[in-house]
């Protein structure tokens, strides 16, 4: 390894042998030394390579068994910085290249990491970067609100854009089609028949059996990345809290963690314990909601009634103790905005014990309901191989036996003191995803109990410090859907120049296209709910 350690080109870029050594250090004790030598962005080892090596680098990373965890570009003056976050055994590596002015092409990572397909299309649509060798040249997040040759994330593109008075529907997208009198094509959405987010699903069905499903997302693209430019840290935390409203705590924490990493600001201990309480409360609320909703989708009205009741009680406690049912804007740069009231310290353990006891009472009722079990067991099976190929996250991965959980594998404070163990199952069906979440309810209640026991009096916020120009940070948080990865970069005046939040849904949505195959169309709502991707968090 020492032979390659000096093998850095004069311009500061790594040669592939050197990169391979860094990749091999992931998950080994050598990783810390590598970070000290090569440099780091937050928890990730920084590995700059020349553009020509971008594809080879991905090939080397795939050969080492890395997961492709995020990809995004940044316009910096006339140049572009392109990033790919890789992970193995809880260690992260940030692969980076810089495209000189005038150069717009880069080898695609998709041939080595299928999960990179949509993120690369997202970058292509917003920045105009071309990924050579990408198997899919169709637009993704772009519909008809801006032109094929306009790129919102370029500096010369104004936030207001030049949209038409009425944006036309995106009719010409080339969906996969099938020929033959037996095959039905079923378009669904973007407006869905329920109180849910918009998106389009195109089914090809043979009788009732799903032959193919193609998702078309991007309907709720709101320009979040562009809107973030020029925001102050407080403003960015507010925006991050609205990337996906059901994950307001998770995204706000990831964004604040990234900003704090850039600015060298350490939140006080009490704030860290409170953040963990908030994110676990968010996990519990969403798990209760979805378990109830899955019961509803199987017409098991009793379950829907019970779990939606438990969720409502939980949200009312959030409002009573922390001032907001969904805990929006409770996490702020440098700490938290609200304290733990004395009333919560005394009442929360009792409320959690009551919930635990109801969950213990309800579980055998679900287990013994034959109509319920008949619908969830064996429905929507996701093969483990697909999880690895796509880089699926959270309960979608854990239900296939892959224990990806930031809290266990790359624990940040205060999880480094909590000893969280990822809950896994192996069947990969709707039931496995449901029961992983059921067990996570108990685990989250235990975590909150520990937080309450260990939290000490102290300040809630550390004073903000303006980071130097170009300071960047990375936030990695286990939201209720899985790993959230957020990158931020500051300008010289303390404002944001780049914000990229990667919701776990990015890698779970494509899994839905796979796990539905061979199931019947009427089971789609059930399968979809068992994954429950965020549209807003995906579309940005």
């Amino acid at each position, binding site marked *: 390894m020492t032979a390659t350690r000096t093998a850095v080109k004069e311009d500061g870029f790594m040669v592939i042998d050197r990169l391979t050594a860094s990749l091999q250090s992931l998950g080994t004790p050598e990783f810390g030394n590598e970070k000290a030598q090569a440099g780091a962005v937050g928890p990730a080892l920084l590995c700059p390579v020349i553009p020509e090596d971008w594809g080879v680098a991905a090939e080397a990373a795939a050969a080492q068994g890395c997961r492709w965890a995020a990809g995004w570009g940044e316009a910096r003056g006339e140049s572009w910085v392109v990033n790919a976050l890789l992970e193995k055994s809880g260690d992260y590596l940030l692969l980076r290249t810089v495209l000189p002015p005038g150069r717009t092409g880069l080898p695609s990572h998709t041939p080595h990491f299928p999960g990179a397909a949509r993120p690369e299309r997202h970058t292509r649509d917003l920045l105009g970067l071309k990924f050579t060798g990408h198997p899919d040249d169709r637009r993704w997040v772009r*519909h*008809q*609100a*801006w032109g094929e040759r306009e790129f*919102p994330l370029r500096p010369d*593109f*104004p*936030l*207001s*854009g*030049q*949209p038409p008075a*009425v*944006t036309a*529907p*995106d009719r010409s997208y080339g969906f996969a089609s099938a020929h033959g009198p037996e095959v039905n094509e079923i378009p669904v959405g*973007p*407006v869905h*028949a*329920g*109180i*849910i*987010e*918009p998106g389009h699903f195109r089914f090809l069905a043979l009788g009732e059996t799903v032959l193919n499903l193609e998702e078309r997302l*991007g*309907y*709720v*693209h*709101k*320009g*979040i990345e*562009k*809107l973030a430019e020029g925001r102050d840290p407080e403003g960015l935390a*507010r925006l991050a809290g*609205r*990337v996906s*409203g*059901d994950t*307001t705590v998770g995204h706000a924490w990831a964004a604040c963690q990234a900003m704090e990493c850039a600015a060298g600001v350490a939140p006080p201990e009490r704030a860290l314990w409170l953040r963990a309480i908030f994110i676990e409360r968010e996990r519990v609320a969403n798990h209760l*909601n979805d378990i109830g909703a899955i019961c509803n989708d199987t017409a098991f009205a*009793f379950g829907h*009634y*019970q779990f*939606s*009741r438990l*969720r*409502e009680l939980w*949200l009312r406690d959030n*409002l009573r103790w922390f001032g907001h*049912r*969904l805990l*929006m804007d409770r996490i702020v740069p440098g700490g938290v905005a609200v304290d733990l009231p004395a009333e919560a310290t005394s009442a929360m353990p009792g409320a959690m014990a009551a919930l635990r006891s109801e969950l213990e*009472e*309800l579980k055998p*009722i679900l287990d*013994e309901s034959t109509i319920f079990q008949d619908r969830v067991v064996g429905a929507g099976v996701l093969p483990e191989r697909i999880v690895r190929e796509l880089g699926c996250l959270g309960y979608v991965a854990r239900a296939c036996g892959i224990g990806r959980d930031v809290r266990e594998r790359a624990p940040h404070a205060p999880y480094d003191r909590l000893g969280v163990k990822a809950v896994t199952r192996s069947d990969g069906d709707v039931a496995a995803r449901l029961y992983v979440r059921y067990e996570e309810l108990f685990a989250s209640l235990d975590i909150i109990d520990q937080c309450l026991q260990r939290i000490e009096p102290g300040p809630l916020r550390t004073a903000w410090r303006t980071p130097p120009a170009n300071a960047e940070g990375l936030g990695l948080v286990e939201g209720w859907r899985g790993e959230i990865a957020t990158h931020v970069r500051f300008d010289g005046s303390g404002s944001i120049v780049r914000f990229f939040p990667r919701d776990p849904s990015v890698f779970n949505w494509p899994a839905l296209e796979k796990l539905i195959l061979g199931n019947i169309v009427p089971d789609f709502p059930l399968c979809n709910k068992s994954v429950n991707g*965020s*549209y*807003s968090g995906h*579309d940005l």
Partner: protein
Amino acid sequence: MNKLLGKIARVGIVTETFKPLTDPELDRLGTELKAVIDGRFAGSLAIRQVDAGSCNACELEIAALGNPFYDIERYGVHFVASPRHADVLMVTGPVSRHMQAALQATWEATPEPKWVVAVGSCAADGGEFGVNYASCGAVGNVLPVDAVIPGCPPTPTDLVRGLLSLISR
């Protein structure tokens, strides 16, 4: 089955009257709403909810109206699957430009007479997102709006109150 029946018996019906929540006016409005719905809508007010670009927080709270604590159906309010069955469009989000045509088509598919309720801060005035290359901002920039229920997100109680005031006037 015994466990299930036992749980049903022990939990009982938890549906609340709105009186004890916060606002004594709410109970009055609830009764009034029922009267208005009975009188003007033959006992049934149908709402089609459209997420036109929301972050999904508003959807969570609108969906909560169906939980056993609020049980808004008891007033004759139903969330329907098709705009053709709807009296009211309940629209959330800043209207994303990619949803503009779909929202307008939904509005056109809704039979007259119809009302549009803009729900949430983004629907009210654009919220955190405002007007930009991807967002039309407030629902009022795209459709004629009859009532606004602000809040980020509005609580279920806010939603009931807003709906009652729309329908009672």
